């Protein structure tokens, strides 16, 4: 399977600090749902920002569909790759629809407003994440979880080929965490969406995800199908925790730490 997003020997460090991402080479397969796991501070978020084009690698390169990401104009890239940052508070009471409509911005010319087609698209995106009822609400009045769903809807309104999510489930409750993963899996199946999800919800990975990348100390430690990566040995090493235990049960992998 061909990689739609590809990191080649990518290295990155924030101003004068140590390298956060060290020589990572990996390919996110087209039309697959991939998880990016690893302990806190291991460079997951930075790697995703590199894929989103928000950061430029210090060494190596990031490619989208075989083309170096930096040679793709930003607005063109925004039509193909959507990124949902970790939960952020909004300073202004925009309506939910206004926020989701910004996802149409890469398609809208300067000095133009979004048209009816864009509105339909935004409302469809909201409905996809089961948040259509929020459209007229102000984002400042929403719960953290609702805001997160709105951010995902905004990304879907970009009609991207590839969706990058940085810990989307952090503010979500049990039901919505599972629902979000199911939604992503459904979008993969229905329109071939590629998604890379940074997550700490290891128990939600198997069987809905197709692939898992495990990062530690800025380097890729393991990758493979969920049941290959989610094992006592690999997870123990990734999280540097000898107490991690996994068990396969009814086609899923249960994970806990003793």
């Amino acid at each position, binding site marked *: 399977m061909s990689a739609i997003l590809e990191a080649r020997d990518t290295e990155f460090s924030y101003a004068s600090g140590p390298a956060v991402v060290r020589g990572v080479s990996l390919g996110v397969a087209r039309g697959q749902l991939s998880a990016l796991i690893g302990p806190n501070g291991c460079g997951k978020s930075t790697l995703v920002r590199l894929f989103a084009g928000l950061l430029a690698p210090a060494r190596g390169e990031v490619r989208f569909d075989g083309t170096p990401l930096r040679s793709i104009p930003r607005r063109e890239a925004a039509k193909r790759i*959507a990124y949902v940052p970790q939960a952020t508070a*909004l300073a202004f009471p925009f309506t939910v629809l206004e926020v989701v409509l910004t996802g149409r*911005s890469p398609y809208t010319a300067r000095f133009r407003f*979004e048209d009816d087609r864009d509105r339909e698209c935004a409302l469809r995106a*909201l409905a996809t994440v089961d948040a259509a009822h929020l459209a007229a609400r102000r984002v*400042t009045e929403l719960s953290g979880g609702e805001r997160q769903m709105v*951010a995902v809807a*905004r990304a879907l309104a970009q009609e991207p080929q590839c969706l990058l999510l940085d810990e989307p489930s952090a503010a979500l409750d049990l039901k919505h965490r599972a629902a979000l993963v199911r939604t992503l899996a459904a979008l993969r199946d229905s329109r071939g969406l590629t998604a890379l999800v940074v997550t700490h919800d290891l128990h939600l990975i198997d069987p809905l995800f197709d692939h898992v990348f495990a990062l530690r100390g800025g380097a890729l430690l393991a990758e493979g199908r969920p049941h290959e990566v989610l094992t006592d040995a690999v997870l123990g090493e990734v999280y540097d925790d000898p107490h991690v235990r996994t068990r396969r049960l009814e086609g899923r992998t249960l994970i806990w730490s003793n």
Partner: protein
Amino acid sequence: MQTLAQTGVLPQVTAVRLWRALALLAVLVLVLGAAALWAGARTLDFAALRSDPMARALFFRLRLPRVVMAALIGSSLAVAGAALQALFRNPLAEPATLGVTGGGGVGASIAIAFGWGARFSGIPVVFLAGFGGALAAVLLVHRIARSGALLLPGALLLAGVVVNLIASAAILAIQYVADSSRALEILRWIIGSVEVIGFDTIWRMLLFLVPCWVALLALSRELHLLAMGEETAGALGVNVERCETAIHVVCSLLVGVTVAVGGAIGFVGLIVPHAVRLLFGEDLRIVLPGSLLMGAAFLIAADLVARTALAPIELPVGAVTALIGGPVFLWLLHRRQRYSAL
């Protein structure tokens, strides 16, 4: 699936809404402008204007330029305030609270202390000095806020407070060492006024202000996205760094030039964008042009109050805007504390 018909209650953000807002605000500017031209120490007498050269001179050399000046300064401060709020994602940001006005004031004071009249290829030195001071303040506040924002909520506004303190100390020092006539000039200028004789200064200001207005309006799409968050804007195709730089420079120029001419007129950039938001919604593509018009209307009205409230005594227009702006600031602060950190 929800259809458009079912969500018909949602406000439409369309060109129609923008034009409706602009038309309303343009009427407001015209009405207040007419009132400001009519009212004053002597109310406007059309018959005298036709026959009496003295009355004509008073009108065309004093009153009309003064109203136009109020409009220019009001527009510039308001649109700069709207842009800075979006850029810093802080509804309490504006040229005065961020210390940009203070920085511009220091630059302008230095220029005044060394002599008003100086020009550099036709451009008053005081404009350039005001711009330099304002830009230094913007960059300083930006740096402080960026390094401290994660640790300290409200770092941005604290940075603004500090810059303002430094600026007023510097202005005081400049006044102290400058010779007495210049010191008095600085004092009169600090108080702030839109008084002007003739259109000479106005043309010179327009040379700077119009390109800045156009630049900010052209960046309104980017500012709308930046108001949602820096990373979100970046992911939607905005070149965040380039935009930030452009907005820093443009806002500094707007504030520097207006401060150099009008002195410290605070809170216009706070009150006006919020009023536009309350009336016409949060979309920056409406808030920016709306602030441009409402800023003009607001400062025309404030100056009208300053001229007529205690006539024949004239109040400083900066005092009028601060007396309205201070309470608005406190109200916003109170409201904002309810839902998030500064």
